[in-house]
């Protein structure tokens, strides 16, 4: 009996060492450069006789693990088999439609919300002399209280109170606001059609719907009629095209496709040509320049369509490459139309694209990026825009989204 007892352990031991040594070897080869780079970086921070900090090196080892996505999918599959509604220790939860939601057991009150509103007020005062109008837009949160079906007890990250407070103070300080929560879901888009299951963003049709609401708001609030013929905000200007099973969003890549499922991605392609110049800058200062028609200048179709690795690139990057620190879009066909500066996050990338045909100039700054390449206050004061639109995703309400016009 002892022989059998040891035999099964020996068999496993052989499997163990084969797996361990081969996997170790593969990782030594595949992540050699990244780990060496991390090690060199840490060594440069210490004297020759000291041992460097190792936590960054360990992080690199985990990040660059060979076949990492297979392990993530294994974890994902196990979580799905166990029928769990939470994953990664409540980093995300799944609602009754299968959509991943951010989770939060307890939200600490942000006492600085009035100050954020005051900063927008100061900015409005700084540009008042130029007759620039300011609008604060709150994008809809993925979890909408009373609308998102969630199993009892699951701790959704409910931003309702924070958004309500922000909009209240904005209005109190005389800033016009647009609360997009009121418009979703609607007759055209259900909740499932508004947000991706596996990504924190809204869908492109939802972004387009929001564009229409924004244009209506600019008209009703400021008398600005960006789309007199209704062409660009009507359904005739764009044709939807659905790419099947190519969308695994950022949250889905963190949790695994097995758990949330791969989605279709519906893009809106223009039925007009347009003539645009676009210059943009990434966080590291790299500059890009494109020009041409709507699709060539503003969309990133080839890269997305050609990508067959759902883990690599999100189709959401089809619009303005998802997010760059600075964008400047000139519409050559409408030099007399209004100009808009967006202080925004990634939610408004498709909105900016849909707004571009109706404006002469759109500049956009990703306000959450910490960069010394752009001084937001200086930029705002020195450049004239007809409108400044501040857009914040409710989950981003915080110091980083309002890092301008401090007291």
């Amino acid at each position, binding site marked *: 009996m002892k022989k*059998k007892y040891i035999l099964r*352990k020996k068999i*496993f031991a052989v499997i*163990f060492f084969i797996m361990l040594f081969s996997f170790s070897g593969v990782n030594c080869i595949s992540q050699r450069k990244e780990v060496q780079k991390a090690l060199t970086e840490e060594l440069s921070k210490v004297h020759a006789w000291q041992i460097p*900090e190792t936590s960054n090196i360990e992080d690199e080892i985990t990040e660059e693990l060979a076949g990492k996505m297979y392990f993530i999918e294994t974890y994902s599959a196990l979580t799905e088999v166990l029928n769990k509604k939470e994953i990664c220790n409540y980093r995300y939860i799944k609602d009754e439609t299968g959509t991943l939601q951010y989770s939060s057991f307890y939200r600490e009150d942000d006492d600085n919300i009035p100050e954020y509103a005051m900063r927008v007020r100061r900015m409005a005062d700084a540009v008042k002399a130029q007759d620039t109008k300011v609008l604060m837009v709150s994008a809809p949160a993925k979890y909408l209280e009373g609308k998102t079906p969630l199993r009892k007890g699951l701790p959704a990250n409910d931003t309702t109170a924070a958004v309500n407070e922000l909009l209240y103070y904005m209005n109190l300080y005389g800033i016009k606001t647009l609360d997009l929560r009121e418009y979703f879901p609607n007759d055209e888009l259900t909740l499932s059609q508004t947000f991706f299951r596996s990504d924190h963003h809204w869908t492109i049709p939802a972004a387009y719907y929001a564009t229409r609401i924004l244009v209506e708001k600019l008209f009703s609030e400021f008398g600005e009629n960006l789309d007199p013929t209704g062409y660009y905000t009507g359904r005739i200007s764009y044709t939807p095209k659905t790419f099947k099973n190519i969308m695994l969003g950022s949250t889905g890549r963190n949790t695994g496709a097995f758990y949330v499922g791969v989605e279709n991605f519906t893009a809106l392609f223009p039925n007009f040509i347009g003539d645009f110049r676009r210059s943009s800058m990434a966080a590291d200062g790299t500059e890009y320049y494109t020009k041409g028609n709507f699709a060539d200048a503003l969309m990133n179709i080839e890269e997305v369509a050609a990508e067959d690795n759902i883990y690599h690139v999100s189709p959401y990057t089809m619009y303005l490459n998802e997010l760059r620190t600075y964008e400047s879009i000139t519409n050559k066909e409408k030099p007399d139309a209004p100009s808009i500066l967006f202080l925004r996050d990634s939610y408004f990338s498709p909105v900016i694209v849909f707004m571009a045909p109706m404006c002469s100039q759109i500049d956009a700054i990703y306000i959450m990026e910490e960069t010394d390449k752009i001084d937001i206050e200086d930029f705002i004061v020195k450049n004239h825009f007809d409108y400044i639109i501040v857009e914040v995703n409710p989950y981003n309400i915080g110091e980083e989204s309002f890092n301008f016009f401090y007291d």
Partner: protein
Amino acid sequence: MIFASLAFLLYFFPVVFLVYHLLFFSRPLQNCWLLIASLLFYAWGEPVYVLIMIGSILANSLFGKLVTGRSSSAKRFWLVISAIANLSVLFVFKYLDFVLESLSIFGVPKIQTGLTLPIGISFFTFQAISYVVDCYRGDTTPENPFYVGLYIAFFPQLIAGPIVQFNSVADQIRNRRVNIDLIAIGVCRFTCGLAKKILLANTFSAIVDNIFSWSLIGSDKLQVPVMLAWVGSISYTLQIYYDFSGYSDMAIGLALMFGFEYSENFNYPYSADSMTDFWRRWHISLTDWFRDYVYIPLGGNRNRNQDMMVRNMFIVWLLTGIWHGANWTFIFWGLANFALILGERFIDYDKRVRNPIIRHVLCMLMVNFLWVIFRADNLYQAGIFLRNMLGTNNNGFYSDLAILYLRENAVFFIAGVIFAKPVARKFNERLFKFAGSVENVIFSVMYPFIMTFLLVICVSYLAMGTYNPFIYFNF
């Protein structure tokens, strides 16, 4: 570096194991290699404090020589000096700030050194003391600094035990055998320990850390109802067992792969039917150390004067509490264990309470309550949490969140409760008894697959970056 990490599994362990076995022709070279690897292992997480460890090795090697081959008074003198030296280092790094902060209550100006605690200092200090005392007693002969270093710093048991007494490994340092059977047993033990830590302990710890932190927010902002508090306390009871015993399993398994055979550190403590029985099963190496190096030298049970016996027990449990951490919670916890164990003796518990179910339930209740004190950041939080458990904090009874936690982690709770009992042992015994049975054959075939599955799942959890706390920072 910790065992449950990719850096250890992919880089450190394969290299150390491979080189060790390539040096099969020379035991001294193997030992040297293990010492170097162990120092690197420690330095990975403690690049500065590794010097303290090296200092401890050199100093205790010297003390080991000084306490042998001399007159009794000289030996005793150096023994005392070594104890003072070892305990002083432990005191400065672990307890000094705590003492200074406690004294500030009496008006003494609050000074904090800001020194951080070297990982594993409690473990390797006790091992160092064990070495010197064993030399003093003549249980072993003094070793060269390299072998002393290997004993103190050997990476499997360095950070979280078991606390190995020198007399139990002295011979193994020079004369251990390594064969495929031991390696195989070690591999399986290590994998089981890894699964305990990653799959069970980490799952429970995510629950525990949330619930305990909520208890401090204030019941006006966030209540912790009775149900939720009990989920938290039971989760911690399971967490600490699987974390600690999992780590011990990994340590014992790794040691076996290098030919060292350590004693068991846990013997299904949650099968205990009294506090006395519990402490025969929990962290056995620590209780053995205190028995051999504190309790028995003080006279142990052999005093006719019962007061001396009580005094000895009090000292041991006070020190046990203090050893676990620099916080009044640990002292309170240690003394509470003392009170319960003493109480069991005084009331002749074994004769008065005979029903095994009642005994077991009472024991588990006491253990559970004491773990709450152990886990709390301070006595205030412990009090709040216990009040939450008893429903005396205006916190209500029912909790959706508790139901959610139980539902979401049902499989883990069930596995946690089942495997806390000697199910695996009884199953093995049954297989042994019915050697040629069908279930034996099926299990033998399935075993490698089950273990491989566990290993892959563990690596998946690590790749995912799931919650993987290291709870031995206090030690």
